[in-house]
Each structure stands twice: as structure tokens, then as C-alpha cells.
């Protein structure tokens, strides 16, 4: 396809703008990357936190406390990083702070927040809050919560108890009032504008034919530099062109009132596109043009000597369609009560080694140091449990022989023959440890049964019209025996509200797993000729994690919000029931 004609075709296609509803079900890596670079994919959302408190302790003698709240984020090493301070509210035991905090929400990690409320002494009043030395102020109380907890209760409030732990005396932790956090997502980022633009009476720039017009829309940055944000397709030989719809996000544009430069060019395959005219309009003005049905004449800048003039042309710009719609984000769905349900399947094949020996991947260290399986459950489950409201997790094992039975490729970890659910992450760990002593490791490694089991739960939930999305974590030590069987199961599951995370532990060669992870190659194809309609598999070898970075679990989880959004958006499912 490397002929020059296709080059021209590429140059003539439309670029930029924002996710249209169709772009959501057609995947385009370049577009994805573009949105990611702008934080426009639900992965990174800006959350605005408002704080208020009730029943604070009174530390001032003659008047009430003068509280100020400070927000910290706790790093994985336990260190605190200050995110910001509120203003000081005078004489109040139930202050409502006006200052908002903007925190970047990241789905794939647990973000621990620490909130401290200080009483600011009178002598410091009037000072800039940032300049206050916190050690000179009296601590009224401290509260901790996770951002995921807040994110699932968006547009609702989360109330946490303030505690005042005196140094090394947690027993004396007293109640010191309550802190209420209200969270909302910045709205501007969600609105997209759909435009259909048309021009009439364009001039002819080509010698023998009509012009081949296309539009470029640019925004002016603070420094006056023009940054192109989108380009339409080229319409050949057309002096009355109507381009396909353009999608712009308000976030991309800046605001509805920021001026946009709309330039109409005549396409020239040598790259020297001739300007046919331009117009400067903000989105608000374009909306007005549309609602009043008026037209805008294009102009061409002329420089006569020193002064710049505009030559107004006969050509006109017409807005055929202007509509704003809100593109719902991952957080909207969480706030609307959508749940992510967590499921686990653990590899009990003999290749893991005898669990009683220390070199086994299943060896449970009496010192309490978790093995690779336990660590994967803890890390992935630790993030996902916040999105599963009943905290009942189905847990299975595969590739082992339960007592006196034949090899099972999907048995309940809790030993029960009827129900597969266990309570909480702790429940998974207990069931895992007890299963280890109750089954004998065997083989081969087959995922099909486990995936089918998960798919059955997911389809049952769909049939009951529940608002749930399922995440199956498969932890395995080796290469699957029947690749095609696994592919068939994955292809079938791709139409269900299900994502599959595979963690490879141990030192085996995981090349085949990479094939399953569709974003590294071709789309999965079943033996019957059906092709996976979307990417639902993520694979990560866990040995990378052992080197101490937690970024691997994050990369495993990072695609989940996107996979979730492709599912709900393609089906037109709204965030609220």
C-alpha cells in the first residue's frame, strides 16, 4: 500500500477533534494516544474536593477554634506530600471551607489521602496560609481515606471521623469531630461540541478545476501562538463544501469563549495549501451563528505597507449543526452506581513445584512474607475491592486434583461444591491457603473452564439487568496448554461485560500470553471464525514487579477504564439507571 496515492489520501483525511460516539467503538491507536496525552480517557480525571467539618474540638479559651484543613497524599513508602491548604475559618467548630482541592484520580492505584485540621492561633491570622508553620499550630484531628472511596461516591459526601492520636498512644485516640468530603469531577472536560461546517462561494485557486477545500481549526495560546486542533477531510472540486461533523472538546479548546481561527485551504498535494479565507470565531459565536441562521464572511489578511488589513471575501462560512453533548467518564459511571466485580482464578498446576518446599511458587512462608500468588492477589485486589460493593469475590483454582477426584480445571477455592464466593481479599487469601493443603497439584494449564465460569456469571448479571462489569484475574505460572481453546473462550467473552487480567508468575516463557493480549498484535480469532469484538485481555509478567516497582500492577489495571468505557459507550448505556 506504499504508493503515493495512499499518501495523499492520508493527508486528506480529517484529524483531531474529540471522540465521537463512533470513535468510541472503532479503535484508533493514534487517536487514543492523542486523548491520553490530553488526559481525556477517564484514566486520569481531575476531582475537585470540598471540605467541611462538624464538632471540632475547641482549643481557644475565649473564642472558638479557627480551623484550617491541610490535604496530604500518602506515598507508597508512607511519606506524606502536601497537596494544599484551605483558608482559615474564624471562630467556627463546624467550618465549611471554600478553597477546593483538585486531585488527579488514577484508577490503577490506591491513593491514600490524609486530612489534617489545625487550629490557627490568632497571632498568625492575616498571614498567607502557605507560609504558616504547621508545627506551630495546634492539630485538631487527622483523618484518612482513599481517593477511590471518594470517587465511587462522586456528587455525594463521604464522612470520616477525625482522630487525634497522641504520640505513641493510639489507645487514647479520641473522637475529635467529623470531616465531610464532597467530590465532583471538573465538568468542562466532559463536554464535547459537534459541529457541521459548510462554506459557500469559495474562490477558485486551481488552474483547470475547482478548489479542493479543507478546514483547519486552531486555537490561540496565551503567548499568541496558534495551535491547530483539528482538520477536516479534503473535498475535491467543491466550491460549496459541507464537511463531515467535527468533534471538539471544551477542554481542548480552553473555553467556549476562547477565540478559534478557522482557516479554509485549497489542498495541494505538494503541501503548499493556498489560503481560501479565514474567520475568527469562538465556540459561543459559532453557536450564535447556528441559532440565528446567519452567515460569516471569510476574510484574507492583506498587508499594505505597515498596516494589516482584512479583505472581506464573498465566501461564507455557515454552521449547519452545533450541538453540545457530555461524554460520560469512567467516574460518572462509578458515581451512577456501576460496580466492578472482582474474580480470581489461581493456577494449581504441578509446574509450580511442591508447595511444601521453599522453591515452590506456592510456598507459604511461615514468616508471613507473601508468595508471588499472594502478592498478585493483594496488589490487584487491593485496588479493585473499592469498586465492588458487597466485597464477595468468586475464587477458583485450576489444574489440580481435589481429594479423590479427577483433575479439575475450575474448582471453588473455598472447598464448597455449590458456591464460589469468599468474603473480602482476606477471604481469598484464606481460601487459597486452605486449598493448597487440600488439593494435589496436577495439570495441564487450561483457562477455558475458568473463563466460561466467569462469562456465565457476567451473562447472568446482564440478563438480570444489573449494572456490573466483571474483572477476572488469572494468576498462572506457565504457558497454557491449549491456546486455541483459550482464544475461543476469550472471543466469546468479548461481547460480555468482562475484562480478563492475566498475571504470569515465575520464570517461564510467556510469549504465548503476549499473543492473547490483543493490543500487542492481531485481534483474537476463534476456531469458528468469530473475532473478538474488543480487547478484553491484559497480560503482565509478575517478575517485573519483584524488582520493587509497583508500576506493573498499575499497567495491568490501566486499561480497565478504557475497556469498561468501550463496553458501555458502544451499547449506549448511560451512567445512571
Amino acid at each position, binding site marked *: 500500500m506504499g504508493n503515493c496515492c495512499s499518501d495523499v489520501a492520508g493527508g486528506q483525511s480529517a484529524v483531531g477533534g474529540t471522540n465521537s460516539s463512533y470513535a468510541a467503538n472503532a479503535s484508533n491507536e493514534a487517536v487514543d494516544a492523542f486523548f491520553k496525552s490530553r488526559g481525556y480517557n477517564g484514566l486520569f480525571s481531575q476531582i475537585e474536593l470540598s471540605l467541611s467539618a462538624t464538632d471540632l474540638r475547641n482549643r481557644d479559651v475565649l473564642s472558638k477554634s479557627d480551623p484550617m484543613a491541610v490535604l496530604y497524599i500518602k506515598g507508597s513508602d508512607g511519606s506524606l506530600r502536601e497537596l494544599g491548604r484551605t483558608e482559615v475559618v474564624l471562630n467556627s467548630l463546624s467550618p465549611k471551607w471554600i478553597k477546593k482541592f483538585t486531585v488527579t484520580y488514577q484508577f490503577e492505584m490506591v491513593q491514600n489521602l490524609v486530612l489534617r485540621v489545625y487550629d490557627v492561633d490568632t497571632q498568625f491570622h492575616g498571614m498567607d496560609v502557605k507560609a504558616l508553620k504547621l508545627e506551630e499550630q495546634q492539630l485538631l484531628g487527622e483523618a484518612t481515606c482513599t481517593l477511590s472511596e471518594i470517587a465511587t461516591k462522586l456528587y455525594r459526601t463521604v464522612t470520616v471521623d477525625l482522630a487525634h492520636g497522641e504520640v505513641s498512644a493510639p489507645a487514647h485516640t479520641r473522637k475529635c469531630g467529623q470531616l465531610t468530603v464532597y467530590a465532583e469531577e471538573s465538568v468542562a472536560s466532559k463536554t464535547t461540541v459537534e459541529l457541521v461546517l459548510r462554506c459557500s462561494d469559495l474562490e477558485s485557486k486551481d488552474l483547470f478545476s475547482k478548489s479542493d477545500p479543507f478546514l483547519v481549526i486552531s486555537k490561540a495560546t496565551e503567548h499568541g501562538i496558534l495551535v491547530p486542533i483539528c482538520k477536516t477531510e479534503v473535498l475535491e472540486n467543491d466550491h460549496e463544501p459541507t464537511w463531515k461533523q467535527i468533534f471538539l472538546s471544551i477542554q481542548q479548546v480552553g473555553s467556549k469563549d476562547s477565540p478559534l481561527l478557522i482557516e479554509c485551504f485549497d489542498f495541494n498535494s505538494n503541501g503548499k495549501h493556498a489560503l481560501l479565507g479565514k474567520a475568527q470565531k469562538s465556540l459561543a459565536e459559532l453557536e450564535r451563528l447556528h441559532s440565528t441562521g446567519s452567515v460569516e464572511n471569510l476574510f484574507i489578511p492583506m498587508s499594505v505597507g505597515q498596516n494589516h488589513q482584512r479583505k472581506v471575501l464573498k465566501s461564507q462560512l455557515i454552521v449547519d449543526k452545533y450541538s453540545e453533548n457530555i461524554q460520560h467518564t469512567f467516574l460518572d459511571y462509578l458515581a451512577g452506581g456501576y460496580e466492578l466485580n472482582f474474580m480470581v482464578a489461581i493456577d494449581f498446576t504441578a509446574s509450580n513445584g511442591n508447595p511444601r518446599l521453599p522453591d515452590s511458587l506456592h510456598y507459604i512462608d511461615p514468616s508471613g512474607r507473601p508468595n508471588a500468588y499472594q502478592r498478585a492477589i493483594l496488589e490487584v485486589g487491593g485496588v479493585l475491592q473499592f469498586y465492588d460493593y458487597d466485597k464477595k469475590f468468586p475464587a477458583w483454582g485450576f489444574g489440580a486434583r481435589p481429594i479423590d477426584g479427577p483433575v479439575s480445571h475450575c474448582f471453588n477455592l473455598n472447598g464448597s461444591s455449590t458456591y464460589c464466593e469468599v468474603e473480602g481479599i482476606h477471604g481469598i487469601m484464606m481460601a487459597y491457603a486452605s486449598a493448597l493443603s487440600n488439593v494435589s497439584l496436577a495439570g495441564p494449564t487450561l483457562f477455558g473452564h475458568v473463563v466460561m465460569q466467569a462469562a456465565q456469571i457476567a451473562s447472568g448479571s446482564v440478563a438480570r439487568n444489573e449494572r456490573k462489569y466483571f474483572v477476572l484475574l488469572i494468576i498462572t505460572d506457565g504457558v497454557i496448554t491449549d491456546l486455541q481453546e483459550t482464544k475461543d*473462550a476469550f472471543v466469546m467473552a468479548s461481547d460480555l461485560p468482562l475484562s480478563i487480567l492475566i498475571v504470569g508468575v515465575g520464570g517461564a516463557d510467556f510469549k504465548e500470553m503476549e499473543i492473547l493480549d490483543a493490543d500487542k498484535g492481531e485481534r483474537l480469532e476463534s476456531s469458528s*471464525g468469530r473475532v473478538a469484538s474488543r480487547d478484553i485481555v491484559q497480560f503482565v509478567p509478575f517478575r517485573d514487579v519483584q524488582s520493587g516497582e509497583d508500576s506493573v500492577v498499575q499497567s495491568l489495571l490501566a486499561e480497565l477504564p478504557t475497556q469498561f468505557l468501550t463496553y458501555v459507550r458502544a451499547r449506549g448505556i448511560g451512567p445512571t439507571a
Partner: protein
Amino acid sequence: MERKGSPYVIEITVISAEGLRLSRNQPVKKNSCVVLRSDPFNSRTTGMDSEGGSYPAWNEKLLMELPANARFLTVEAHSGSRLVGAASIPVSDFAASFLPVNYLSFLSYRLRDAHGAKNGILNLSVKVIGRPSPTIGCAASCSGGPWPGVPLADGKVAGHGIVTGIPVSYRW
């Protein structure tokens, strides 16, 4: 096949196709369309796509009546008058008993040309609009409803290249 329920209606949105080729190294240039067939006498055709080349997009909704005992739908991608590739869609992929009515299934299929060689992928979505009225006593009593199709647990389809449907009466 004792099941003779009334025919039901499905809404198929032919979304797009990927990588259609006329021959080994000749991609489809333009004018591709998709033909859906439920039986030799019953077919629906999309409009021509003139812009997409070998990656055509139609986004076209087609309503189609399916006999209650239909097991397959055939899809064919044409370029002009030439058949580029075809695939068989098992009805159980979108009308299986575990799926609720009006569930929008997003399905993709590998197309194969007359010689059986791989030729592109077709993306479509299918929604079952009307259920056939249960005409047989068994159908009403079966928990899943009177659907031809195989429950998910046994959803693995046997065979290579050509899909085989499993008659539903084996299950009940």
C-alpha cells in the same frame, strides 16, 4: 426440529470491515457492500461504501426476519459485483438463551474468500427485537425462554473453518 415458532425480527447494524482484498496484494479500492442472507430467498443489502477503500464503514441498520429454526446467517462482502469474502454467523452468538431481549451484541467475524483463504474482518452489532411467541409447551416452561441457541457453558463450537450449530433440542 419440532420447534416451529413464529419468525422473529433482528436488527443488524453493519458497522465496518477491515482489510478487504481483491487478490493477495490488491486491496479493495471502493464500492463495497455487505449482503446478509437468512436463506436463499431472504436477503438484505447495505449501500455502497465509496470512501473507505479496503476499510469500508457503513454504519447501516438493516431489519431482517429470521425463521425461528434458523441456525445461521450468512454475510457476504462484495466489491462491485465481485464476492470478496463471506462468513457464517451462528444465531446462538446473538440469540442465546442467557442473553436478555434487546441485548446489543457486538460481533466480529473473519471473512473467507471462495478458496477459503482469510480475507478481512467484518464488524457488526445485532439486536433481537421481537421474540417468537412460544408455541410449544416446552418452550414456555424452559427457564431460558424459547431461544434456539446453546447456553454459554457449552458455547464452544466444534469444527474448523465452518461453524456447526448444535440443535437446541439436544439440550432439553
